[in-house]
């Protein structure tokens, strides 16, 4: 097997839940990611769901997902000894990732100028709700606030009613993926001139970037997209109730194929009128169009409907609950899940694994998420060469 993409890349990960996915992705690609946690652990360890509903910092499934493949070191960065140790770690690191409030790192004595001085090749990536500059840089935000200010939430839900909260911390996720992109860009730049850079990522900006139509519609057409219920804004797709659930209609495939199919069921005769042949007419008269199609599918079976559509090359889909992913045959066939052993629990768990299959470079889970401070001695003692007695003193003083 070839070596991983980031084999040999040493990363210090200071992030909480806002930024943890960034280090997880790098760790999956082979980087040595050391989670530097405050004594007591990363705040994400207190976020559920918990294994068997038993809250405990080493049983947070939330923490598990975002910290797979990392090592953990506890270090009190509010103490001078903690800073001294961090400095030593930073001298041999390639990358520091952090998600603290803008200015906080500098207060601790670990600002960009300092890090750049002690290790000119070091890359610092700051993942902050609004970035490091600007009038709102100190605004307080969680993912739901960022999804709102990032334009994502306004276009989820039904017209005139309470917007629907996006599922799954997508503001943080967008931020973290873009942070990885910024980090690799900085690695390329370092390859040119040897110098590390400071990557200043705004989660709000990453969130707006991931709302496909907002800027283009606003700047191009002076249009403010609204909420359209379970219909795509361009009207090409809408959810319909069927006998045993829901299917998603699509008028974005071949129109004649769809029409023939519906008519072969003795339905949708009205759509045979010539004006419906025109795509513009169909989109303009979407309410009538979908009403006719809804009537056609209301007694159909969800999966039969979706399967038949695919044999006709029409992009219909079953509208499934999240639960069906756990037994999804496509994911299983592609080896998507990773079986990760947790020896201290005597159990093995199925993790969401590789979203990308690389021909030459593996993306494979191999190390369960760390227990709090699990690798403190390994990293400070064996790798940094600190004496056992010094570690004992630091432990007594609550630094580690």
């Amino acid at each position: 097997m070839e070596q991983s993409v980031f084999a040999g890349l040493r990363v210090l990960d200071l992030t909480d839940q806002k930024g943890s996915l960034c280090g997880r992705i790098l760790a999956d690609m082979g980087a040595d990611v050391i989670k530097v946690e405050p004594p007591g652990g990363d705040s994400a360890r207190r976020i559920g769901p918990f294994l068997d509903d038993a809250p405990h910092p080493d049983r947070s499934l939330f923490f598990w997902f975002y910290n797979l493949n990392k090592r953990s070191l506890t270090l009190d960065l509010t103490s001078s000894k903690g800073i001294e140790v961090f400095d030593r770690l930073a001298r041999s690191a390639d990358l520091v990732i952090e998600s603290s409030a803008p200015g906080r790192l500098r207060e601790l004595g670990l600002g960009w100028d300092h890090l750049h001085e002690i290790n000119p090749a070091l890359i610092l990536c700051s993942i902050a709700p609004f970035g490091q500059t600007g009038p709102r840089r100190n605004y307080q935000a969680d993912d739901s606030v960022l999804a709102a200010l990032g334009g994502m939430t306004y276009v989820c839900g039904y017209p005139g009613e309470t917007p629907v909260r996006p599922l799954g911390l997508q503001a943080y996720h967008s931020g973290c993926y873009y942070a990885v992109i910024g980090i690799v860009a900085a690695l390329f730049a370092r390859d040119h001139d040897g110098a590390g850079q400071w990557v200043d990522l705004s989660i709000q900006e990453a969130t707006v970037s991931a709302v496909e139509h907002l800027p283009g519609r606003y700047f191009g057409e002076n249009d403010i997209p609204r909420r359209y219920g379970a219909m795509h804004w361009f009207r090409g797709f809408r959810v319909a109730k069927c006998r045993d659930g829901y299917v998603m209609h699509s008028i974005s495939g071949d129109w004649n194929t769809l029409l023939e199919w519906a008519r072969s069921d003795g339905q949708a005769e009205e759509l045979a009128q010539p004006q419906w042949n025109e795509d513009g007419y169909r989109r303009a008269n979407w309410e009538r169009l979908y009403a006719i199609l809804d009537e056609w599918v209301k007694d159909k079976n969800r999966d039969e409907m979706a399967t038949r559509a695919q044999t006709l090359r029409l992009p219909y889909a079953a509208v499934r609950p999240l639960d069906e992913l756990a037994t999804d045959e496509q994911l299983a066939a592609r080896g998507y899940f990773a079986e990760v052993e947790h020896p201290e629990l005597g159990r093995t768990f199925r993790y969401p694994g590789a979203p990308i299959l690389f021909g030459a470079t593996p993306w494979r889970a191999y190390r369960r998420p760390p227990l709090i401070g699990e690798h403190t001695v390994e990293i400070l003692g064996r790798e940094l060469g600190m004496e056992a007695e010094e570690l004992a003193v630091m432990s007594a003083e609550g630094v580690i």
Partner: protein
Amino acid sequence: MAQLPLAGIRVLDFTWVLAGPVATRILAALGAEVIKVERKSGYIAPRTGVHGDLNRDKLSIALNMSAPGAIEVAHRVVKISDLVIDNFSARVMRQWRMDYESLVKIKPDIICLSMSGFGHTGPRADYVSFGPTLQAFTGFTLNMADEKGRPAGFSYSYSDSAAGYTGAMAALFALWHRRRTGRGQFIDFAQFEGLVSLVGPSMLDMTANARPQRPQGWRSQEGPAAPHGAYRCRPRGDDDDRWLVIAARTHEEWTRLVRALGSPAWASQPQFATLYMRMRNRGELDAHIGRWTAGQQAEAAMSTLQSAGVPAGLIANAQDCCALDPQLAERGFWPALSLPEGGETKVCGIPFKLSGTPVGVRRHSSIAGESNDYVFGDLLGLSRGERDDLIEKKILWP
């Protein structure tokens, strides 16, 4: 000026619709030369709007892949490229002999990134899909139900944007690997799997706890919080679709919130004394908060709460984001591009800054075929006569 990170990298871009173009627009912002392969039709896509925003910074060649001889021409472009990207379903590139197995023979270190809906293997490899259908199939549409239990989900293709940044990231990984090893590779990225990876904690709750997943509504997804919700605000002009998100977790945030609301009597009632009690009585709590926001402009309420240190944000629409947000404006997130036809258009920036390298948007999008002379003439060295011959053979559009 510092060299851009991907200076010298050339991308041959077969992508269409959204996910692929998002990926290549990111690579272009980092300095790659992106050559978009397009068909030419009577319709000329504008340099403004969604299409212009998606394709800024890219070159365009009008190459008719179904004309006899076109594949040989495409192969010549591959020989001077580093990365070939598509987001077709798995079989299309194979039919054109533009798949990795074909291309690696003519360019041994080529990287091919395929961003298909379901990947190149497995029982659904050949399914046709779009962002909305992938979201529905994954579970976003049902599990993002509204208060009445109706399926809603995203009214747009979040899937495409997410697949776009995941695809760009995958391309960067492979380029970095090639820089270190000299080797190219094939990347099989299934957009479906990209989406599934965005609900990780829910997946573990299913596989480890065997718990069925229900729509969570406005309940906090990152630890207990109350209040935590979307509250309707006073209309702005005739726009009554104004909302504020408030999220209070800690005791400090709650006391700051109460103070910011003017310490109303209801807030000192015992049913709101602890976070647990506030969560138990969230309906009543939300009603109180909602009565306050109903008399407030969303912006003003946000400002009041943020000044007090309470996490709050207005539910921004396109105008709020693109024209009124002082933070995005101050950070230059909506750069203006001047257009060759005159005037300018604003587009979406790149959500990070590098301290030493000016990555980001540089120029407007290209009209289909606009870069034919540059690519086939300057880069491939075909004479005017040879290019006319390709036009004659309907391989290139004039």
